[in-house]
Structure formats: structure tokens, C-alpha cells
């Protein structure tokens, strides 16, 4: 199994373990006014995105420790670059679509919570799709 595949699998599960409780906690918070709600969602997004990056770094560190650094010195070749390109493309498409849906929900005048929750789900799903693309492409080719 390729080292990036291993890191992606660990990242996927760590992201699930990190983002789901964080989102559920955010869902349960009650905000008296709009200003407080927007501030709360802003903090939530900062934690979510920063946390997702941190979780990816943590996954790479864990794999490096357990595999004793094996595989990390492999050269990055054209196949790695092609898979990375596909994964980033999948991420971009999903992120763009979720942002579009978020904007549409706001335009429709839906509740702030629903729109932000959709955006959070979009960011999260895009991140998961990125890792899944890595896993599938390294396993089956793409």
C-alpha cells in the first residue's frame, strides 16, 4: 500500500472523529442574536478548517512513526502528481458546488443555521472526497 494511501485512510477516520462532534456541538448552541450567531459560526469554521489541516499533519506523523519512516523517502513521480491533480479537482468541484448551494440557501432567505450547516457539511465532504480519491486512485487506478 502506498504511503499516501495509508495517510489518507488515517486522515479520513481522524477527520470523522474530529468534525462530527464539533458540528454536533455547534448545532446544539443557542444564540440570542444574529451578531452572536455569526461570530459563533466564524469561530466554528476557523476551528473546523484549522483542525482538518492539523488532523492531516497528525495522520502523516502517526504513519511515519508506525511505518518507521518507510515509504516517505520514495520519489514523487508522475503518477503521484496525476492522482493529486485528480483529488484536488474533485475537492474543488465539491467545494464550489457546496458554496453555490450555500449562496442559494442564503438567497432563498433560509435560516442562518441551515445555510452555515450546509456550508460546513460541504467543506467536510469535500475534504473526505479528497482522501477517498487518493485511496481509490492508488488502489484501483484512475
Amino acid at each position, binding site marked *: 500500500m*502506498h504511503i499516501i494511501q495509508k495517510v489518507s485512510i488515517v486522515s479520513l477516520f481522524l477527520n470523522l472523529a474530529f468534525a462530527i462532534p464539533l458540528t454536533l456541538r455547534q448545532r446544539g448552541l443557542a444564540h440570542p442574536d444574529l451578531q452572536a450567531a455569526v461570530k459563533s459560526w466564524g469561530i466554528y469554521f476557523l476551528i473546523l478548517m484549522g483542525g482538518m489541516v492539523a488532523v492531516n499533519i497528525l495522520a502523516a506523523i502517526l504513519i511515519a512513526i508506525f511505518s518507521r519512516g518507510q515509504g516517505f523517502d*520514495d*520519489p514523487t*513521480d*508522475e*503518477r*503521484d502528481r496525476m492522482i493529486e491533480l485528480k483529488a484536488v479537482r474533485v475537492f474543488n468541484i465539491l467545494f464550489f458546488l457546496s458554496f453555490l448551494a450555500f449562496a442559494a440557501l442564503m438567497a432563498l432567505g433560509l435560516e442562518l443555521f441551515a445555510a452555515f450547516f450546509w456550508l460546513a457539511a460541504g467543506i467536510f465532504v469535500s475534504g473526505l472526497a479528497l482522501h477517498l480519491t487518493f485511496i481509490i486512485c*492508488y488502489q*484501483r*487506478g484512475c
Partner: protein
Amino acid sequence: MKGKDSITNTIRTQRFFAGEMTQQELANRVGVSRQTILAIENGKYAPSLLLAFQIAGVFGKPLTEVFHYQTAKESKK
């Protein structure tokens, strides 16, 4: 459903005739990872023209002896 054209190869055979060259050795000589050689051998990845020429060059063979273009019709046979 319309099938896909593919590129097959004889890398495994060429490695055998090159004194059972390992995948790692071949990977080192062309500057890619062992996993990439494995993916090419198994037909999961079609290499770039440059890499294909480099691999054929390691075995001292022309490109067409190591890589074969196969149309969807031919692979059905």
C-alpha cells in the same frame, strides 16, 4: 457500454530476461516509486511517453517491444 482502449506491457517478462531485475531496481533506474512500476505492470496506470521510453531504454528494447497499444475491440478477443 463502449470499452476503453488500453496499453499492455511486457515489463514483467523483460525484468525476468534482465536477470530477474526487481521492481525497486527498475524504479530506481527510471526515477519513480516501486508502486508506480507495480501499477504499470498490472495495467492500472498508463505511463507518460517519456517514462515509457525510459523503461524500454533500461531493457535496451524499442518502445513497441515493451508497450503495446490495444484497442477495445482487440481486448475483447
